[in-house]
């Protein structure tokens, strides 16, 4: 068999299949007239196409009350010589609907493309797009935009009571403002914690304030609502809700969260690998050849901050490396960097605290009179080289 004829035939077949595939996906090339139109080489008067023109590509609805609907008609004119056909190619949100002219727009005539928008989203700026397909070869695809600002009948600023880190016995009050944008004289009828178990943990106080005191100039009336812990909270995350009942129409009842973390004088802080609730650092899967480390912090506050010293009392397994850095003063106390390291080259092991293997553990001793010892878990799995699952 001769190789050359075979190769030539193969190339021709391949080229033919490739060309067919290309035409299938891209379509036949434009005619000369189409190309001229696309390039604007030919004056409009000589073209035989529909020509899409619209009064504006964007419409600003301004402020819209949440839950309301507004409409706008974009005026489309056909300045071409053939009927202009429009097609709905979709919107970026189901909250936007649009209605096209029922028939093609004849040359020299206009039609409306009506966009309807329902303000479903949370208060703030919005922008959504509706895409039209047209039979104008120079404007096959047109995007029309509506935008504005969604407002609500009421607002809360800030959005929660946030205590950040709360220490035992610390007296702190956090405030939020509850505002009405329509009512000149709103009332808060009640403000209660949404939990029978913590009824006396927080004190909630209401103060009606003047318009000038409100953080949003658009608000017409409002209250300041103060939350103060009554007693030392159990260590751990603070996640509570206050249920407010008001006279604001459309916002008669809603809940605002209380967030934060109740901490002791000494607190271990860490990135996403650290979990406060279980008091452990999760190092995940570690390749033996790479090892791994996580940097934590010991955060110290209270009367015994100065002169505090930490030392490693115990580690399980012994192969863990624990590094304590220098004490550094901060605005609110002090901190000591704490690095936990699983060194390179350790054998495979499961220490993730599940049924497969107990978590590792580190115990630090301190000279703090109330917290002489701090311990935390270290969870990890060491994999042999080449094992990825």
């Amino acid at each position, binding site marked *: 068999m001769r190789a050359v004829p075979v190769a030539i035939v193969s190339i021709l077949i391949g080229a033919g299949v490739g060309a067919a595939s290309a035409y299938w996906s891209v379509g036949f090339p434009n005619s000369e007239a189409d190309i001229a139109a696309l390039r604007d080489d030919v004056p409009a008067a000589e073209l035989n196409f529909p020509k899409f023109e619209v009064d504006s590509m964007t419409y600003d609805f301004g402020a819209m009350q949440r839950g309301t*609907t507004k409409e706008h008609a974009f005026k489309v004119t056909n300045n071409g010589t053939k009927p202009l056909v429009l097609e709905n190619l979709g919107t970026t949100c189901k909250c936007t609907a649009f209605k096209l002219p029922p028939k093609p727009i004849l040359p020299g005539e206009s039609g409306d493309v009506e966009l309807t928008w329902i303000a479903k989203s949370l208060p703030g700026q919005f922008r959504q797009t509706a895409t039209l397909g047209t039979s104008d070869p120079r404007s096959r695809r047109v995007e029309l935009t509506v935008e504005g600002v969604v407002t609500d009948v009421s607002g809360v600023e800030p959005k929660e009571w946030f205590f950040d880190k709360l220490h035992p016995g610390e007296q702190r009050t956090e405030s939020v403002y509850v505002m009405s944008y329509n009512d000149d004289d709103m009332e808060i009828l009640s403000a209660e914690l949404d939990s029978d178990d913590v009824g006396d943990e927080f004190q909630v106080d209401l103060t009606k304030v003047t318009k000038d005191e409100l953080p949003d100039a658009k608000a017409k009336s409002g209250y300041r609502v103060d939350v103060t812990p009554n007693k030392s909270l159990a260590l751990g995350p603070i996640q509570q809700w206050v249920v407010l009942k008001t006279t604001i129409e459309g916002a008669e009842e809603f809940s605002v969260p209380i967030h934060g973390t109740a901490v002791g004088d000494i607190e271990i802080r860490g990135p996403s690998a*650290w979990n406060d609730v279980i008091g452990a650092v999760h190092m995940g899967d570690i390749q033996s050849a790479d090892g791994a480390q996580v940097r934590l912090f010991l955060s110290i506050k209270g009367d015994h901050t100065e002169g505090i010293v930490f030392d490693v009392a115990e580690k399980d397994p012994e192969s863990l490396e624990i590094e304590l850095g220098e004490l550094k003063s901060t605005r609110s106390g002090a901190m000591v960097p704490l690095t936990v390291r699983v060194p390179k080259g350790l054998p495979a092991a499961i220490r993730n605290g599940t049924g497969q293997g107990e978590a590792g553990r580190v115990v630090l001793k301190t000279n703090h009179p109330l917290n002489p010892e701090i311990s935390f878990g270290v969870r990890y799995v060491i994999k042999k080289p080449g094992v990825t699952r």
Partner: protein
Amino acid sequence: MTMHHVGRRSRPLMFGLLVFFVPMWATLVIGSRAASESPEPPKIHVGPRFEARFVAKPRIPVSGIRLAAGGTPQVDPIEANGPIFVEWPKPDLALMFTGEQMGFLEPCGCAGLENQKGGFKRRMTLMKELRGLGWPIIAMDAGGLVRRYGPQAQIKLGRSLEGLVEMGYEAIGFGDKDLRLDMLSEAANLDPNPLLSANVGLVDFDAGFSRRYHVVEENDIKVGMTAVLGEEGLAAAKSMRDLVTLPAEQAIAEVLPELEAAKCDELVLLVYGDVDEAKDLSAKFPKFRWVVAGTGGDEPPIQPEQIAESGATLIEVGHKGMYAVVVGIYEQGSPKYRYQKVPMDHRFEDAPEMKQLLVRYQDQLKTLVTAAGSFEPLTGKPMRLPKQGGGWVGSEACADCHSTACEIFMHSPHAHATTTLVELDPPRHFDPECLSCHVTGWNPQAYAPYVGGYESLEKTPHLTMQGCENCHGPAKNHYDAEMGNIDATDEQIERFRADLRMEIVENEGNMEGQNFKGGKVVQNCMECHDLDNSPDFDFQEYWEREEEPVKHYGMD
């Protein structure tokens, strides 16, 4: 015939075999090996009453299967969302802007991956493809990586930062919700550390946990950048410890001389604030050619706005990471700058690196839950029960007396809700943000269990599925009274029944002109069918539909 001649004749056949059959064989072998390596998902047990009477067929949205299996999507993303970079020559430099991710590591929008936009997997593919074309890219994020608070939000913040660093971001600003979490500890573990803020310092401005400004040079073009937390964010941050803050204007005035001294070709100001605030700062500092508003409209404009007071270009990044904005810079020719709003749709395949990030994220959640034997490490203590009901019994308990309603239920998507999570890749049945609407006995908007709600597939198999009690309320009192497990008077029996009844009022629905305020049923539906997860939900349409109906009434 000699062996030599036989060999020659068989060469074309051998060539054909090699060309056509080797790749097929390889694909089959590799594919089946990959399939066999994937662990079998755990089996969902629905209880003997259900298994005997009905068959719950696991159902994953078809588009998800098709896309997940590398199949052909039915929605053409380019037709739906438009072509990108049309007639763009390779730029001398591309600036990429994102922000206000709000915790959406994965795509968001109408149901089905074909309709959703966003996610790190697609964003990384965009960057890899552009870099593969030789585009130098400088990526910047305005901040707003998370929107919730708590242990899971902290984990998400960490994974988001990890992902952005892996994608090569040069700058990540702070949103106020990011700062509520332990950003300091995240910063201490970031290497490299692209955190940027002129007016927020972690511990202090010179503590080394973030930069106040940054200058990057790519392809001989020097770009100076800084970021500020806007007024509303600063007000929210005032109660946060371990931060130092300055008003945005003062901070920019302090860092701008440093950027000017570096003789940058382009200056970028990232503002975690709204459009008005971004424009206001731009007017005061016209040297910044590019000003990003982190909390602008939910999608970027088709064309950017030129800020009249400064001549700068305003960039809005949209919400939930659904879009990226790319600005191309051309040293020669015209125009010098090109702008493209890039929808993160399924024209971009899932990048394996970011898929691994998500696997690590779900694995971390799973380990925490498995080790603790509960979801407390992620959700805190369970929430107290809604007032009526007495506790959760599971949908199977309803089947004996309410068999018609249960038959309808078992053929509806609600019955497959938990299976859907288990069979995803990676599985999501340790993720409270998914579970809260896919099991029984959880609060959908708090992403937390009620006391006695679903705990695990093993411990509480009767509380899988989006069960009856999620709508009707906990049914233990009713069940015990009807079964004679407790002594209940006739009045109590009737009261327990009434507690669980749900009545649809006239014209009840969530669309324009329908009765939403008076509709307890539709309000309950929208606890899960909310704007983020079910933006096209229409109660009346869903309730009345014939395919996989949900409509049911009363007892048999």
